[in-house]
């Protein structure tokens, strides 16, 4: 009898919960305000960054306060699945109105016609756009994006642990080895397939820094001798146990902030994030000490979703973002990154961050992390390359065979 009562109790409770769920679900849909205000969403993985995220949200608030007809809200999409999620949504005719893409996904979206042309939305000639990064925003004469952030890669180092930064690759490896003791590691980089996009960013510096390239513009050159040399250097450091193996970027970056990692190759955006984690950390930057002065750059364009019903209003936001005073504010939020237009570093910025000129001086030798000539196929090529490089790191194949396989697989992909 007791059991029967209990069962009826469960049934009643379940029905009640179901009813509540249904009612609440009905209340959960989104909608326009109906007061003539166009509500737009802006998706950027940067909104999740400690330090930068809250400041960017305030920057959006400033836009909203300056407008009566357009409101932009941050659409937080988790970084690990950002590209895949947003491309799926855009591919099906939905998704955020404004998107801050990384270059590989930008190229794929642009090639697939998912990005609205911007030529009618903004008059590019009106602005003093940075030429080097901006050239990648235009495809076949059509502008598809505007630089939101351009950030060169440099070597971050803990100045308390490393009084004099290494200037050659040999010094770099010997510093990494000598620092690795106890719970301190000389270096850190991403090395798992779960962080595919991040591994690609990290190995990019080794390939280009040793004179290699992913293509010659017409053919893939994944298994070229120069690439093998660069990636062998990457693997040697992995094998030397100078990095916290298995630690993801979130973990080893906090370790860097806590003085547990000596050096890291990263981009200018990392400055604000590092200070956000430990304002007292005594760190500075220097150019990456590899044989060739050529490194990756995070180019992050802002684009308008072709499927957006508020393209003109989205254009209003981009025009507001390109206004000089808003560019300066954005640059201060982004740290040592550059923005779309030429801006002057203020005396206060240079005093607080004396190494800003190091980043600025790298602009001419920095390249976006895409495969030139095969831009739209970059995400696919990236997957193949990272899979094979990680397999080599883990001892499942020797590096040369892994690169040969990557070359073959990627060539079939782009054929």
């Amino acid at each position, binding site marked *: 009898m007791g059991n029967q009562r209990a069962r009826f109790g469960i049934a009643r409770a*379940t029905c009640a919960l179901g009813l509540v769920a249904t009612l609440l*679900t009905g209340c959960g849909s989104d909608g326009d305000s109906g007061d003539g205000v166009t509500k737009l969403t802006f998706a950027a993985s940067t909104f999740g960054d400690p330090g930068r995220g809250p400041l960017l949200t305030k920057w959006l608030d400033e836009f909203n306060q300056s407008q009566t007809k357009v409101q932009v809200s941050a659409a937080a999409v*988790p970084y690990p699945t950002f590209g895949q999620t947003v491309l799926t949504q855009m591919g099906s005719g939905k998704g955020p109105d404004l998107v801050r893409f990384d270059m590989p996904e930008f190229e794929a979206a642009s090639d697939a016609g998912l990005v609205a042309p911007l030529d009618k939305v903004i008059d590019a000639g009106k602005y003093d756009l940075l030429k080097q990064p901006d050239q990648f925003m235009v495809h076949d004469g059509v502008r598809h994006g505007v630089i939101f952030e351009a950030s060169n890669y440099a070597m971050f180092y803990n100045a308390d642990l490393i009084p004099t930064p290494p200037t050659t690759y040999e010094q770099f490896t010997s510093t990494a080895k000598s620092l690795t003791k106890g719970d301190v590691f000389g270096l850190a980089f991403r090395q798992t397939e779960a962080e595919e996009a991040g591994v690609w960013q990290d190995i990019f510096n080794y390939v280009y820094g040793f004179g290699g390239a992913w293509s010659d513009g017409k053919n893939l050159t994944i298994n070229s001798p120069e690439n093998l040399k660069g990636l062998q250097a990457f693997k040697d450091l992995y094998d030397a146990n100078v990095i916290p193996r298995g630690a993801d970027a979130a973990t080893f970056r*906090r370790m860097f902030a806590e003085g547990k990692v000596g050096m890291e190759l990263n981009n200018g955006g990392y400055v604000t994030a590092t200070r956000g984690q430990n304002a007292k950390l005594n760190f500075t930057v220097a150019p990456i000490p590899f044989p060739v002065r050529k490194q990756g750059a995070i180019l992050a364009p802002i684009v308008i979703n072709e499927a957006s019903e508020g393209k003109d209003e989205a254009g209003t936001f981009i025009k507001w973002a390109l206004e000089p005073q808003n560019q300066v504010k954005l640059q201060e939020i982004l740290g040592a990154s550059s923005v779309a237009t030429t801006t002057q570093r203020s005396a206060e910025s240079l005093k607080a961050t004396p190494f800003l000129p190091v980043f600025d001086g790298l602009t001419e030798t920095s390249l976006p992390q895409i495969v030139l000539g095969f831009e739209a196929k970059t995400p696919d090529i990236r997957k193949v390359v990272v899979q094979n490089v990680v397999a080599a790191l883990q001892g499942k194949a020797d590096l040369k065979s892994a690169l040969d396989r990557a070359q073959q697989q990627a060539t079939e992909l782009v054929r």
Partner: protein
Amino acid sequence: MRRFRFGVTARIVAVLVVLGVAVFPLYWMFVTALSSNSDLFADQPRLTPDLGQFGVFVDALAEGKAAGWLLNSLIIAVGTMVLSVGLGIPLGYALSRFSFWGKAVLTVVLLFTQMLPEALMVVPLFALFRRFELLDSLTGLILVNSAFVLPIVALILKGAIDGIPKELEEAARADGARPFTTLTRINVPLIAPSIAATAVIAFFHAWNEYVFAVTFIFNPDLQPASVGIANFIGELGTPIQTVMAVAFLFTLPAVAFYLLVQKYVVSGMTAGAVKG
């Protein structure tokens, strides 16, 4: 006497070990949430929580987002549980008791759906849900989660109904009961433990689901906690303490639900054991 004491001690140790294995991840999450930055990467990890860091929980809840995420997760999980169990009972009953054309094929198809990864279905379902205007709504997530969990619910309940002697139903029918009455008055009470078990499966599936939630929901106010937690993973950093605090809060309703239902599973399993 000594042997008795040894036996008791061994049992206590065994219970503590099992308890430790089960509870330790939760405890470690709590300790990590309440650790300072320097403690996180110290040579000797801190084994006890630093209660001075309790503000991380207050901050996580004060911003209002975490509470909203948890409520959304609860709605999705309860909705999925009600829908999938509600549909799974008659489906399981039909598969168990009725003969119809294509029954074997249907059973195989149900099994086949369990072999498809969610990621494979995201794009086609996205297009379908867009057409039916089910994107960006909790209803859509309840439906898609139910679709994924219903086959396993139905197959488990079919197996449970298979175990009930048909004579019971025949006797009920002889007394004038219709199939629906037979199902609700005879079978459902007898398979209550299996229903409770499938309710747990459905609840946990929907509670933890991520792939559909991250793709189908655009409005941040409608995001469930599984997506909300992932939002903390930034391009350049992740506030580990905050993530752990929200993750700890995320596990509590699920654990509470399991503890609530678990006793019915056990009581149902032992019901009738001494009768006869």
